[in-house]
């Protein structure tokens, strides 16, 4: 029961490791960005799970409603900020990939490394 109850956290760890693995194993720059995005998204799930309470209502204030258990809204607000940060990081990363494609004619990490060693020699 205890293990099933931590379902959200298993998903978080699984997604995080999937993203991290893609990030490390792939040499294509766009695939690396995909891995990074999955990795970051996993953390969003971690934060959102953290704020939830069993049987809790969304934290909205209405007249005449009292004595209700609310979910903690703060982690959700925090992660809203982190989502914005993640999107801007991805935007900069994709812009860099476009520039790399223009400058090198490829977005394969290995081919870029080869071109760099060729120009060094």
């Amino acid at each position, binding site marked *: 029961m205890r293990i099933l109850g931590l379902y959200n956290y298993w998903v978080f760890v699984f997604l995080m490791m999937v993203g991290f693995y893609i*990030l490390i194993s792939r040499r294509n720059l766009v695939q690396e960005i995909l891995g990074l995005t999955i990795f970051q998204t996993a953390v969003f799930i971690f934060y959102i799970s953290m704020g939830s309470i069993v049987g809790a209502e969304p934290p909205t204030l209405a007249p005449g409603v009292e004595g209700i258990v609310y979910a903690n809204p703060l982690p959700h607000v925090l992660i809203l900020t982190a989502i914005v940060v993640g999107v*801007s*990081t991805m935007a900069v990363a994709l812009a860099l990939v476009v520039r790399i494609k223009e400058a090198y004619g490829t977005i394969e990490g290995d081919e870029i490394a080869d071109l760099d060693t060729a120009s060094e020699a």
Partner: protein
Amino acid sequence: MSEHLPILLVVVPLAAAAITAVLRSGRIAWLVTLVTSWAVLGISVSLLVQVLRDGSIRYVLGGWPPPWGIEYSIDSLSAFVLVLLGGIAAIITPFALRSIERELERGLVHFHYSALLLCLAGLLGMTSTGDVFNLFVFLEISSISAYTLIAMGPDRRALHAAFRYLIMGSVGATFIVIGIGMLYMMTGSLNMADLAELIPPERNRTISVALAFLTVGIGLKLALFPLHLWLPDAYTFAPSAVTAFLAATATQVAVYVLARFLFTVFGMGFTFEVMALDRILIPLCLLGILAGSMRAIHQKNVKRMLAYSSVAQIGYVVLGLSLVSLTGLTAGILHLFNHALMKGSLFLAMGCIMYQVGSVRLDDMRGLGRSMPWTMAAFVIGGLSLIGVPLTVGFISKWYLVLGAVEQGRWIVAGVVLLGSLLAVIYIWRVVEVAYFEEASGDEPVREAPISLLIPTWALVLANLYFGIDATLTSGIASGAARLLMGGG
């Protein structure tokens, strides 16, 4: 007015960044940056004076009292780092005018200043905030603008270097978010002072994992060996002024953040007694000092050589922190400041050479000792400081570091510090030999760098000498800050 200085420090460069982004003229953008950086220096100096006189400043944002609202908390350590940031920005901006105009395309110049100001705002925010999530936001502001700054480098390899830095930096930042999340899970607070009280002193698995995530995440930002792989390329291919700025500020702020988390948030007892983090950090620092210095010796590009030397210098700084003694911490904080001065002046000298010669490869520096005497003299003094020769700042911090190691009977640590200095002699000498004892190879005579580049370079060089001869000011502040971190007030 004066009670709002902590927030003005961050808001002024942020607003200036927005203004420079819409300006079409690079020169006007530069002027705005210049005024802003001097204003930042002024504000940070007055904050330091205020902190030294009246003790720590706590500023509450928007009237929401902590731990609910975001709080800015400036003590002597953060004020010291703020002055360093303001000073470096105020010196490098005058240098940037001609250097950046030569190295960047015309249309990019004003965007460069915008990104520079954003990066500065982020670094200042990281240093002054007392809220861990706010720290992450500022970290990302400074990092994302640093990626774009590096990508503007004249060589196409700058793009790939910036991309690698982006991937590793984002992984580091995400690790930091995970760590902060775990801290929040256990304590329900994000305020540093609050966290320090709420974190249970005994062993707790979630808190331990949070410490691990935060240390690795900050280590990536810090380029702590063996997480330094992004640094050499990023420093080599970034525009000269950007390299000098980042080398003198970004890593120093990352060290500050590491010290803040290890000492203030988690507390010395938890970090070093329960978790025994020093047993991991000290060997890594020693390896970093040796590996960084050895790699530096074999480089053909002098900027890359200095970048590897930065990896070694970061080893010294973190080594100071992880000795966990008053002398060790003082050494770490001093070296944080001094390393900024020496690397700033060395990279600015490289900027002068890049401006006149168009290359910083060792082969292209033949005979520069005669054709660019002032630039090479600046390099030599910066290099002596890096080695740790008496009368330079490098000597002061290494003296404290060796003292701290000997105090605890760690002879191996002291030995490695001295060995690292010897290795620094070798790589600095390689440049001196080529520049002074070999004949110029090119047909066209190389002229000395323009005075507008030499003045900022020499300002930092003279700071190297001044704080090396009279270290009472810096070492006084550093030991005060060290005592504060150790919890002695």
